[in-house]
């Protein structure tokens, strides 16, 4: 016979007995035997033929989740222990946090109307719901915290950052609340919403030539920093605090929210999201396909960058990308409009590229779960004509301006 120990919490179901006997060659048979003789116990312990979620079962001091679950073999003389399984967790949204503490823990929503079939599910992490409306809030607070902790940033110093816009706006918020001044270097053809937002948040704006794209902004910022000691350049492209923010934040949040992730899709900008969240997801789901959405070579990228254009951010290790898919402006805008039309999500241009790639990967996989990161919301692109113009007119209209 098999000895089954009953915890105090379940004794009411077995007339107060501390242990009962049962028979069977596997745990499944033992539990079925118990269910037959003690129906009330069966209702607590079994659910759809498996161990109920609020119960842990040990066989001879081993948790059966580390053995073969209900198929774990048992034999005469074995001891089965039934135990309460306790789980819980903190409120994810609470009042009383400061604005900086409220960064992250963004919603992860399913996009059922954009999935190619019912067998493959696409989820989107809505980073536009961070305080300044983009994923860069996570990075900005991590960069400043790391610099403060390392003693590299002291009162009176001034932050300087080349930025495609979102990082600047996030840094402007963090700098304001922590009491630093900030100068942002950005290409002169940035959207007016971004420039205005930077100025409203209190940043000093310096323009670099629009024709040189993001790389031109980096070069000008390096020149300025080299010429003046008071500037501290946190440089999100080369700062490990950037991927770390996504390892601890973006990636961990996704890993906790889903039981399985088969593919992870994010835009290729600094590489921070893909490296950090990709690494964290690989720890939980070793077979996950870490996939970059990359703009076509030559496109003037805003937020995303084409590696073929020559600059590889130091934090980006291309060998850690399982897939890299190129996306045109037109494909991005088409997906961006679909996202708004079908799912009601108003996102930024790079999210269009990411959703385009997520749908392609989902179609290739045929089944499973695909997670994509929507880096920002659409508000900063409202001045763009592409929301409403005919798709065939989109590409020429985007060539002379930086939208991503």
């Amino acid at each position, binding site marked *: 016979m098999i000895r089954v*120990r009953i*915890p*105090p*919490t*379940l004794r009411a179901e077995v007339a107060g007995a*501390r242990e009962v006997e049962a028979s069977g060659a596997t745990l499944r048979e033992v539990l079925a035997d118990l269910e037959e003789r003690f129906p009330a116990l069966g209702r*607590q312990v079994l659910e759809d033929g498996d161990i109920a*979620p*609020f*119960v842990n079962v*040990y066989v001879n*001091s081993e*948790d059966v989740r580390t053995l073969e679950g209900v198929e774990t073999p048992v034999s005469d003389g074995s001891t089965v*222990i039934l*135990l*309460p*399984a*306790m*789980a*819980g*967790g*903190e*409120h*994810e949204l*609470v009042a*009383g*946090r400061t604005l900086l*503490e409220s960064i992250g*823990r963004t919603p992860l929503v399913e996009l059922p109307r954009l999935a190619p079939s019912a067998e493959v599910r696409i989820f989107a992490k809505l980073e536009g719901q961070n305080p300044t409306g983009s994923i860069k809030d996570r990075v900005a607070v991590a960069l400043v915290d790391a610099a403060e902790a390392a003693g590299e940033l002291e009162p009176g110093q001034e932050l300087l950052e080349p930025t495609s816009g979102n990082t600047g706006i996030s840094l402007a918020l963090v700098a304001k609340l922590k009491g630093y001044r900030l100068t942002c270097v950005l290409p002169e053809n940035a959207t007016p919403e971004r420039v205005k937002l930077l100025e409203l948040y209190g940043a000093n704006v310096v323009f670099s030539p629009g024709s040189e794209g993001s790389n031109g902004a980096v070069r000008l910022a390096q020149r300025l920093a080299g010429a003046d000691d008071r500037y501290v350049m946190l440089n999100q492209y080369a700062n490990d605090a950037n991927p770390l923010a996504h390892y*601890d934040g973006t990636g*961990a949040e996704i890993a*906790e929210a889903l039981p399985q992730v088969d593919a992870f899709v994010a835009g290729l900008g600094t590489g921070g999201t893909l490296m950090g969240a990709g690494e964290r997801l690989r720890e939980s789901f070793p077979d996950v396909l870490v996939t970059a959405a990359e703009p076509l070579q030559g496109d003037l990228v805003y937020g995303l960058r084409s590696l073929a254009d020559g600059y590889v951010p130091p934090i980006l290790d291309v060998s850690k990308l399982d897939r890299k898919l190129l996306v045109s402006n037109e494909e991005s805008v088409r997906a961006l409009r679909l996202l708004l039309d079908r799912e009601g999500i108003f996102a930024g241009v790079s999210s269009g590229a990411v959703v385009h790639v997520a749908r392609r990967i989902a179609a290739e996989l045929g089944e499973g779960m695909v997670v994509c990161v929507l880096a920002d919301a659409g508000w900063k692109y409202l001045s763009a004509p592409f929301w409403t113009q005919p798709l065939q007119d989109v590409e020429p209209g985007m060539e002379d301006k930086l939208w991503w």
Partner: protein
Amino acid sequence: MVIPAGVRDRLVEHAEAEKPNEACGLIALRDGVAERYIRGENESASPYRFELKVDPETWFLEDEGYELAVFHSHLSSPPRPSRTDVENIGLWEDRPYVILALHTGELAGWRIAGGKIEPLPVDAT
């Protein structure tokens, strides 16, 4: 329920040690007074979730005259059961449930039954 300073210190130490993740364990009470804290392992290793793992024998301390309280820490929210806590109460319905809000040091006791949360006052002496 009485949680004397000595036991309370153990709870805070464990919560501090597990930071930034939630800590969890079992408090053994006799006649409503906490005598000791048994550290558990948070199998979720997460700032927002806990999954309690302890030596199975700990759950049978009640056969030695103890009453058990399930304990876990919150990192930044008040020491009130979250929706996740209530949904996962399972077999611990109507039993002592203790939460420490690490950022404020506030310790609070509860009973959760039928989806409802009832306070269970916690005193130091």
